[in-house]
């Protein structure tokens, strides 16, 4: 490259000198000239104003002008204003490097790297430009391609992830790979445990044979390869027929069947994770791309894509496995739940049956209770009705609905409830009680009722409530009243004629109204004795009736048992003497709670019996002793005794052991019954013990006073 004076702009002296000096060195530089001229880089010389003084061929091509046209033009004309580059600084002595965007005369843009070396000649600066457009474009292409791959990859991954169905995932994979790689066939080959394998998913162009569902013998994919693939081996075969591919002959024959020219194989490994322990990777299968048209050189991107998708399949496999296990668990749980459900249904069924049976028995119970002319109810421990029969409606005019849940007081009224209360409390403290009450029916009638409460205890013996049975005893009460009145009236009415009879006979017996024959006197004696017995009988009947009717209220007071014993013995002493019987009383100081008159009556009655049934010379004992919370009185004789089967019965009315014998002795047959009634009214017990031929003992108890 030789500067030519004709191309020189208006020059200075200094310039001329330089040129001159240059021409002197021309011969030395000649060697460099073609080098510069044909250098790859554009090389130019610019003046202080940035106008071209000289340029090589590459520079002319870069700016799209002949050297002639280029010389004298300022570099600035070719710098792209929109490039954002700062202009070159020609005023500095520093070497400058950078990049520029140029636009040439044909409006072709190019990216250049420049280096400006100022003042290589006087007012001449060396500009070296290297076109880097292609390189930049290549980089951008690569970036673009990478971006596309990323997009593609996420798109495929998304598609794969959108499904949990392995089959669908595999299908998506082969379809997408086939689409992206524009391969003729993409398939997934599953390695089976016995070493054989099978194509389980395939995307193939229509003009090539399908190998879907085709099973391959073990030889096609020998065991030793498994390990290699399991460790991540990838095979990219450009041409199966090329010996460099290293395919065995039989394998080449095999692939020829399917027109396979090139293939790309990536493993799909399975990371088996059982019970948290990680086992080494296992080869599950292969993702394979086939090229059938022609051999194909597989690029890195394609390998990478295949590998990444194979990894996705691995993940999907793991998920599928988890899903499968989950499904197994769900299945097991479902089976368990179904079992539970079945037994639950059975239980419900059983309960329904039981309930139906219960309902039926309840209906029967209701039917029975409703048919009875008595009040039947269940009252809970809050004194509220929980069951009642129809009689409540008949008697009280209150429907079961009104009564259910209602309090006793609400149903019966305050006054009646006041009379019931003691017994209700007693039942709720666990005692069975029976009492009589007067109630008013809905129609205003007064009725006498007999009421029984039976406590309802649970397993823990807690009172849950009580069963109440109320029956109308008005009729019975009326009859009882009539009986009592009758007995009372009869007894009273008998007394007056008896007085006359008794007195008349006694007067006759004095003999002052005329003397009778011996037979006559005997008859008079019989009449007199019988009258006395009749008097006793009337007295006893009246006594018994009064005690039984409850008209007598025992006037109980604190007494010393010894006093009773002394009084009773004194009263009976005369009779004892008459019968030649020794009466021995052994008084004991015991404080008892009793009605003095009645206890004396009982004691004298027992003593009288003992004396009556003793033979002359016998002894009758009256003793007492302290028992637990009670005093025990005993009247013992040495008489003939009482047969065991009579020991209970003798306390019943008119149940003497030998009635004719008893009557002879002036007994009425009511004495022991009266005794028993008196003792029971005092809360005591009375009983007889006897040894035949050796005498009897009559005992009774009375409550003692607590200190």
């Amino acid at each position, binding site marked *: 490259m030789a500067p030519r004076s004709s191309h020189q702009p208006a020059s200075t002296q200094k310039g001329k000198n330089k040129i001159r000096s240059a021409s002197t060195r021309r011969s030395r530089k000649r060697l460099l000239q073609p080098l510069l001229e044909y250098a790859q880089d554009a090389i130019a010389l610019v003046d202080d104003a940035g106008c071209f003084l000289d340029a090589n061929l590459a520079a002319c091509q870069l700016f799209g002008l002949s050297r002639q046209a280029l010389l004298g033009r300022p570099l600035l004309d070719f710098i792209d204003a929109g490039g954002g580059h700062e202009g070159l600084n020609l005023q500095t002595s520093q070497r400058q490097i950078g990049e520029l965007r140029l636009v040439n005369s044909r409006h072709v843009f190019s990216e250049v790297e420049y280096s400006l070396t100022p003042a290589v000649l006087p007012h001449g600066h060396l500009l070296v430009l290297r076109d880097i457009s292609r390189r930049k474009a290549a980089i951008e292409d690569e970036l673009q391609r990478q971006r596309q791959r990323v997009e593609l990859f996420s798109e495929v991954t998304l598609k794969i992830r959108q499904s949990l169905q392995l089959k669908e995932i595999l299908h998506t994979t082969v379809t997408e790979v086939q689409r992206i790689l524009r391969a003729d066939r993409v398939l997934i080959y599953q390695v089976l445990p016995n070493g054989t394998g099978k194509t389980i998913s395939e995307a193939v162009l229509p003009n090539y044979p399908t190998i879907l569902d085709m099973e391959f013998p073990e030889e096609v994919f020998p065991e030793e390869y498994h390990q290699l693939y399991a460790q991540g081996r990838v095979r990219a075969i450009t041409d199966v027929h090329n010996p460099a591919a290293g395919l065995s002959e039989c394998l080449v024959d095999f692939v020829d069947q399917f027109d396979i020219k090139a293939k790309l194989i990536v493993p799909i490994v399975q990371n088996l994770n059982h019970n948290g322990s990680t086992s080494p990777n296992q080869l599950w299968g292969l993702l394979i791309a086939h090229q059938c048209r022609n051999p194909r050189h597989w690029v890195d991107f394609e390998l990478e894509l295949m590998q990444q998708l194979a990894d996705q399949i691995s993940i999907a496999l793991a998920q599928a496995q988890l899903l499968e296990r989950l499904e197994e668990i769900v299945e097991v749980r479902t089976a368990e739940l179904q079992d539970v459900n079945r037994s639950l249904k059975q239980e419900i069924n059983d309960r329904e049956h039981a309930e139906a049976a219960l309902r039926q028995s309840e209906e029967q119970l209701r039917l029975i209770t409703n048919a009875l002319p008595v009040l039947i109810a269940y009252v809970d421990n809050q004194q509220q009705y929980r069951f009642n029969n129809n009689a409540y409606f008949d008697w009280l005019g209150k429907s079961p609905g009104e009564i259910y849940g209602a309090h006793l007081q609400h149903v019966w009224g305050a006054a009646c409830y006041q009379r019931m209360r003691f017994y209700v409390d007693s039942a709720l403290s666990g005692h069975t009680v029976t009492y009589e009450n007067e109630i008013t029916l809905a129609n205003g009638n007064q009725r006498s009722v007999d009421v029984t409460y039976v406590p309802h205890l649970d397993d823990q013996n807690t009172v849950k409530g009580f069963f109440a049975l109320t029956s109308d005893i008005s009729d019975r009460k009326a009859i009882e009243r009539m009986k009592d009145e009758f007995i009372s009236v009869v*007894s*009273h*009415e008998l*007394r*007056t*004629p*008896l*007085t*006359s*009879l*008794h*007195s*008349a006979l*006694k*007067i006759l017996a*004095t003999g*002052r109204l005329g003397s009778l024959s011996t037979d006559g006197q005997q008859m008079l004696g019989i009449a007199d004795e019988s009258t006395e017995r009749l*008097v006793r009988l*009337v*007295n006893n009947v*009246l006594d018994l009736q*009064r005690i039984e009717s409850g008209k*007598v209220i025992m*006037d109980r007071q604190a007494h010393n048992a010894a006093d009773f014993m002394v009084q009773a013995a004194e009263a009976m002493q005369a009779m004892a003497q008459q019968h030649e019987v020794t009466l021995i009383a052994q008084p004991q100081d015991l404080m008892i709670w009793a009605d003095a*008159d009645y206890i004396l009556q009982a004691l004298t009655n027992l003593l009288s019996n003992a004396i009556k049934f003793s033979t002359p010379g016998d002894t009758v004992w009256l003793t007492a002793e302290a028992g637990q919370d009670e005093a025990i009185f005993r009247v013992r004789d040495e008489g003939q005794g009482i047969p065991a089967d009579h020991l209970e019965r003798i306390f019943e009315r008119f149940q003497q052991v030998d009635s004719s014998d008893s009557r002879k002795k002036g007994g009425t047959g009511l004495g022991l019954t009266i005794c028993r009634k008196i003792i029971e009214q005092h809360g005591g017990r009375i009983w007889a013990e006897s040894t035949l031929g050796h005498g009897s003992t009559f005992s009774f108890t009375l409550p003692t006073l607590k200190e």
Partner: protein
Amino acid sequence: MTKRILIIDDEETIQTVVQFGIQMAAGWEVLTASSGLTGIQTAQTEKPDVILLDVMMPDMDGITTFKKLQTHPATEQIPVILLTAKAQTAEKRQFNDLGVSGVITKPFNSLDLPEQITRILHW
């Protein structure tokens, strides 16, 4: 010392046996009346030493008769012994509360009456 006894009882047989028994046993004079009303009249006029009064009588019973006797100055001082078929302690107590001198329960032996009366009235 002889006494004058008035027996008021609607039963004639009682009047008779009482009359016989007392006369035989003690030799006392016995006046009789068959109703409360006649009994009161007899008591007013005869002023007996004691009146034996039956409780159960038609028209005017023994209790009413006793109360009338009590209201009359001529008879209020005369001791009265009731004759009753009711033998109960409580009833006896009730009669005593009325202010009668005593109670003798039927059936009784009329021969024993003078002794009983003497004991009751502390003669």
